[in-house]
């Protein structure tokens, strides 16, 4: 094993006098800064940003990129995140000057192409989800959830009803209850039944005159389709509540079934997942929300509309909840998703879901003999395993995840959903070849064997990464959240230059 060196921070590479930019000289007559800005508002101590040459800069970030695993680097079966291949044409299109170099406040007639993209995307997402209207404003799934809950609140209030409770299953993603809290609503968590599905009896007990909505992910975060969805919808609707679809996991249903047809009133999609955003190392995403007619009056302002051949912005939505995100949402991500939808068409999207589901079932059954399968039934785009059996041997799911790193695989999502002990949530996606699936399966089987025969190999993993396991406890106890230069320099402010006017 080669010992890797510590990577310098960009600040540590800095040398006074170097630069990686080049501006023309100021070509207008200059006025003294002091004459333009009151002296007490002028910066005296410059910000300590790095000073490096252009090559230093590129080497630095290239080295950082080499210390990062993306989908293009290798398999990334991170459950609930849909780490599928990110098409390159999407990146190209997003960089066309006509899309990248346009301003959100340009007059409508100068951005007809951009508005056309938004309008068509709204329309096509409405068809894909079975909804009547779509807003593209939310920047990510969580913001979509919150926007939708604000609409649900406004809907109930408009009917003079005081409904403040949001029901979520215990398998729900953390953003569901958190979004409810930020929308000023209370969460009721209901347990899943032994099949990993909503316990309809528990749901019946939880609903009532205070029910604002049930938030449901379907397929749920265990990768299982809520087969009682029609009854669930009935229970919620009869109690006067609305049905919310967390569509972060839509990769199993494209062209097969639609939230609108399942009885949902509102849905958010994570375009950075199902529709190849990409994920950007954590974002930006896009979290459009589709609604049935009853919620349309409450959509955020403005909506893109088509009048004749013309695309316009409609601000006249009197009952709108208002604005949730600046301008038109994450346009660049919306555009990429639109390119993806157009590149696939109806047959492509259907095959996406079919292949994703077949891949997941294949892996699940191949791994079943070696790991505990808590829910032994057909799965959708993902499935969960439990590391219970390995835990008894002293090897935890975290160790298995770290061991996978030695083989160049990104581990699955671990310890989520919370209801499965030592959980591993595996989502292969449709863009991986059978050879890749088999290679991962074989590695998992090997790790299961290692856990029995030579657990230290697993416990000491990873062996080949640029750093070994990191001390997260100290990181949180004594947080170091920024670089601070060595103290001689900073302790003596008189050493610092002042801003040159």
């Amino acid at each position, binding site marked *: 094993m080669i010992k890797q060196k510590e990577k310098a921070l960009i600040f540590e590479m800095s040398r006074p006098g170097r630069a990686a930019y080049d501006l023309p000289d100021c070509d207008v007559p200059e006025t003294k800064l002091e004459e333009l800005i009151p002296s007490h508002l002028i910066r005296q101590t410059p910000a300590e940003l790095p000073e490096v040459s252009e090559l230093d800069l590129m080497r630095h970030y290239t080295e950082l990129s080499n210390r990062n695993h993306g989908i293009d680097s290798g398999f990334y079966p991170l459950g609930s995140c849909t780490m599928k291949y990110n098409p390159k044409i999407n990146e190209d299109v997003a960089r066309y000057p006509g899309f990248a170099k346009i301003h959100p406040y340009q007059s409508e007639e100068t951005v007809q192409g951009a508005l056309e993209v938004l309008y068509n995307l709204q329309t096509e997402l409405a068809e894909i989800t079975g909804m009547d209207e779509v807003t593209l404003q939310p*920047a990510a799934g969580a913001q979509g959830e919150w926007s939708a809950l604000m609409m649900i609140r406004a809907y109930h209030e408009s009917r003079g009803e005081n409904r403040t409770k949001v029901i979520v299953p215990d398998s729900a993603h953390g953003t569901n209850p958190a979004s409810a809290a930020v929308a000023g609503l209370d969460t009721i968590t209901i347990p899943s039944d032994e099949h990993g599905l909503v316990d309809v009896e528990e749901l019946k007990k939880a609903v009532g005159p205070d029910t604002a909505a049930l938030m449901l992910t379907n397929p749920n975060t265990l990768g299982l389709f809520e087969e009682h969805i029609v009854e669930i919808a009935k229970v919620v609707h009869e109690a006067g509540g609305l049905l919310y679809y967390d569509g972060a996991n839509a990769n199993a249903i494209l062209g097969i079934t639609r939230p609108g047809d399942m009885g949902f009133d509102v849905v958010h999609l994570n375009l950075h997942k199902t529709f190849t955003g990409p994920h950007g190392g954590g974002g930006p995403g896009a979290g459009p929300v589709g609604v049935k007619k009853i919620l349309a009056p409450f959509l955020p302002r403005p909506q893109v509309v088509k009048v004749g051949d013309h695309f316009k912005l409609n601000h006249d939505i009197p009952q709108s909840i208002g604005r949730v995100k600046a301008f*038109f949402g994450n346009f660049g991500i919306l555009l990429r998703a639109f390119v993806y939808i157009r590149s696939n068409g109806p047959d492509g999207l259907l095959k996406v879901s079919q292949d994703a589901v077949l891949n997941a079932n294949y892996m699940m059954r191949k791994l079943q003999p070696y790991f505990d399968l808590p829910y032994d039934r057909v799965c959708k785009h993902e499935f969960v395993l439990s590391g219970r059996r390995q835990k008894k041997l002293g090897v935890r799911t975290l160790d298995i995840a770290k061991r996978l790193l030695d083989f160049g695989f990104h581990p699955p999502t671990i310890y989520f959903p919370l209801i499965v002990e030592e959980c591993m949530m595996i989502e292969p996606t449709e863009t991986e070849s059978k050879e890749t699936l088999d290679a991962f399966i074989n590695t998992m089987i090997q790790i299961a064997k290692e856990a029995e025969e030579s657990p230290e190999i697993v416990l000491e993993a990873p062996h080949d990464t640029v750093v070994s396991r990191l001390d997260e406890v100290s990181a949180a106890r004594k947080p170091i959240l920024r670089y601070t230069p060595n103290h001689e320099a900073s302790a003596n402010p008189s050493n610092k230059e002042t801003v040159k006017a």
Partner: protein
Amino acid sequence: MNFRYLPMTEEDQKEMLQFLGISSVDELFADIPDEIKLNRRLQIPEALSEPEAVKYFSRLAKKNVNSDDYIYFLGAGIYDHYIPSTVNHVISRSEFYTAYTPYQPEISQGELQAIFEFQTMICELTGMDAANSSMYDGPTALAEAANLACGVTRKKKVVISKAVHPQSRAILQVNANGQGYDVVEVDIKNGLTDLEALDQAVDQDTAAVIVQYPNFLGSIEDLAAIEKIAHKHKGLFVVSSNPLSLGVLKPPGEFAADIVVGEAQPFGIPMQFGGPSCGYFAVRNKYMRKIPGRIVGQTTDEDGKRGFVLTLQAREQHIRREKATSNICSNQALNALAASVAMTALGKRGVQEVAIQNIQKAHYAKQAINQLEGYEVVFDAPTFNEFVIKAPKPVSEINSALLKRGIVGGYDLGRDYKELSQHILLAVTEARTKEEIDLLVQGLGEI
């Protein structure tokens, strides 16, 4: 037609189905009740091959007036700036853009370190102690700051200047409706927050005072005076700031701001019709454990080597769930990376130089327009790269005429401020040349 993103061959499919002991993929969907199956094709346009898609999208893109062909004086929150070529090359490295949140630090040190550096740069520019890894955008960051302030002070009123971006105020209002606090807006006087009115609005119940620096009208608020009012009743002082301006302006941290938020778009992020951009969020140490969103911290590995991890996660939605004070999960990491690269490229001297060129060029334009018959610079407050002029005609008329001359004119303030109809907010960045400014001035004069 090939589905080039789908590697499954008929042979693969056959083998997998055989292994599963089923005869068709449809059987894997048997758990979906028939009554809710779609049973028809999606009614969306047929697939485009790659060459067809290129053609289709090029044609759509060409329908948009863009800054390659037109001269932009439009700002109001999103700006046309110099973007070093390095930025696009770095963010196009797919190890960065095809990764997700760095949950597995051993294989995500690149992203984690880049974000740690981003946090440091934001702290340096704002003069604050700690920053997070990004927010959706400046306006949503501002709303989260208000939420935080109400949370820690347990007070239910937020006072915000009308000289804060109208969209920030609109988003704040939706947040306030959700969380159940009141928003009080304070009037503008001579392009700046009316300090007397502010003083009257702030009281014991005030959780936060929020101003923008430079403000929406381009004027540079006197943070020293505002800070005194903000802290009088123990509310938090929240400043939304264009980080580029902080190359020259004294940072809000030096005015005892408690939270500084803003939009990092001026650093390396194209206008992109307003998004994705990159919000930032910085605080004094006291509020470090209240910051929304992801934070990267430094630590060591088993061999004592420096490394980076996501930290203070006990704040976040996946741990706190219904007790969380923010729901943000995915953020704008790739744009934080873009901003970092741009801040690195500019470096210590570059941010000053760019900021100064913005001031000089905007000042030159302001003076020149002020001399034009019928136009008037209405506020005498100091400005950064934007300023307000009163025009002799409706703004839409002026902008249509400018467009014919290849110029995208300024923002029509009448949209948000009744008293400012026929007033234009013009932005002049370092990307404008003297020649371009002169064309604008000439154009305005001839309209």
